[in-house]
């Protein structure tokens, strides 16, 4: 039986994209290959749209441009701006459905995926699309009003998760504590990153605001872009300061801003 061709999709702010983000793809690909069941044929970075309403979110056009600069030499991970161009925030499963349709060739421009190492034609197995995320993502399922139950079911049941976390047991616990996740645990792949590498986009924005160096935490080309366009200042961090995170507004939850850092 041949390996299942697999594409990894990462949704997120990418505000900005960092080496840490790109590491997620590398770690996930190694892990999924190692299971013996999958052949990772592509990766997609899908920056969220501006209407997400997250604090300090730089304009989508910039986030997309930076991601493209960062992944320029990648060879297997690409940037897709479909989600960022939608008029309103798009639920994760909607984005997944869109990309799976493209992948299965049911829409034109499947070639846009640019997968030079694609073995789609060679394999007898239909390709799969899984969501790539960090351990924090699993905890978001518990936030009241943030997710629709049927979406979580579709996300882990129909698509599947590849979740990269540190050597702690945060992800395992999250799967254990949710009946939905537990039921689909065979479709949730937990990847360990044993070394701590906490240089997140939040930290990088903080450093940039303070005029500190972020060299070697993200590609030089992205740093140059940030400087050129003067993104990530104290002012830019005030953007959306009192706004309600869009998913909370949409799902009809109480309109207290989500205290996310």
């Amino acid at each position, binding site marked *: 039986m041949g390996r299942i061709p697999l594409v990894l999709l990462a949704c997120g702010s990418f505000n900005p994209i960092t080496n840490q983000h790109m590491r997620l793809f590398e770690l996930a690909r190694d892990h999924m290959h190692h299971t013996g069941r999958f052949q990772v044929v592509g990766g997609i970075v899908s920056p969220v749209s501006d209407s997400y309403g997250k604090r300090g979110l730089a304009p989508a056009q910039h986030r997309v441009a930076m991601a493209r600069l960062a992944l320029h030499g990648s060879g297997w991970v690409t940037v897709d701006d479909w989600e960022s161009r939608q008029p309103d925030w798009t639920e994760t499963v909607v984005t997944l459905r869109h990309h799976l349709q493209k992948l299965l060739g049911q829409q034109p421009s499947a070639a846009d995926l640019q997968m030079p190492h694609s073995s789609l034609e060679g394999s007898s197995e239909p390709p799969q699309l899984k969501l790539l995320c960090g351990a924090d993502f699993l905890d978001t399922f518990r936030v009241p009003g943030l997710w629709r139950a049927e979406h979580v079911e579709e996300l882990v049941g129909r698509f599947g998760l590849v979740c990269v976390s540190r050597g702690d047991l945060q992800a395992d616990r999250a799967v254990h504590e949710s009946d939905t996740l537990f039921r689909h645990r065979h479709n949730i792949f937990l990847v360990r990153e044993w070394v701590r590498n906490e240089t997140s986009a939040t930290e990088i924005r903080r450093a940039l605001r303070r005029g500190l160096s972020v*060299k070697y935490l993200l590609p030089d080309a992205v740093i140059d872009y940030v400087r050129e366009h003067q993104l990530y200042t104290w002012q830019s961090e005030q953007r959306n300061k009192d706004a309600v995170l869009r998913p909370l507004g949409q799902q009809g939850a109480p309109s207290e801003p989500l205290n996310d850092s």
Partner: protein
Amino acid sequence: MDCAKKTKLVLLSCGSYNPVTNMHLRMFELAREHLQIKGHYEVVKGIISPVGDGYNEKGLIEASHRVEMAKLAVESSSWIEVDSWEGRQADWQETNKVLRHHWEELLSREQGTDVVGTVKAGRKRKRIDAVSISNKRKHGKMEVAHKGLMHKTDGPHLMLLCGADVLESFGVPGLWKNEDIEEIVGSYGLVCITRSSFDVDAFIQGSDLLWPHRHNIHVVREWVANDVSATHVRRALRRGHSVRYLLPDPVLSYIQERRLYTAESEQTNAGVVLAPLQKHAGNHG
């Protein structure tokens, strides 16, 4: 305003650099910022000095490769460079000797050209007599005069940049000679990047050797953990795992092209005693 008073500083980092990683490079960036903001210094240069093969560390690949990779890594840097002197020595060189070498180089360059210093023409500088330094050392005593060495010149200061693990290693029996530690912290100074788990202040407090020189030891807190070490990188490479984005792309290409870092290369020096331990073994009574 304060610019005229800023002391020029050169940071020297010794280590295996086996291979160089983004963590090493971050260390330089963090140090420079800390010193320029808190320490009233102007950091004019960073030097990476990969250790020579004579160090006999397990898994240490040839110095020529390690030097070349470091050079590739700093190509995009405006202030960090690589020096191959230590790597080219047949015998392992103690850290204070490497510091001395670079200090003498700095001085001779100062006296030769105006490249690093800001001294105007016609002003005399104190000549540091390298011979008198080594004579003092032969007698096994650290003269107090040696401590004031750096501060008498108008030229740049030279400090050792390291991680907290190096500071911690001062306590390992047989690894360092007390007078060498004395020279490093007394005559030059230490810039130490800590991970939050290690209490550097407590360590200095508890050391009679370090405590008198605590003002020469600059502690830079790394608030955001970044444990990606060369050991981790080598392990990943052995196992065929990706290390992309943990080190600069040109370094990664270099490694891949030459297939460095295999299970075999990790066995280099297996069972061999580390050079400093071998060298100092004779010194214990």
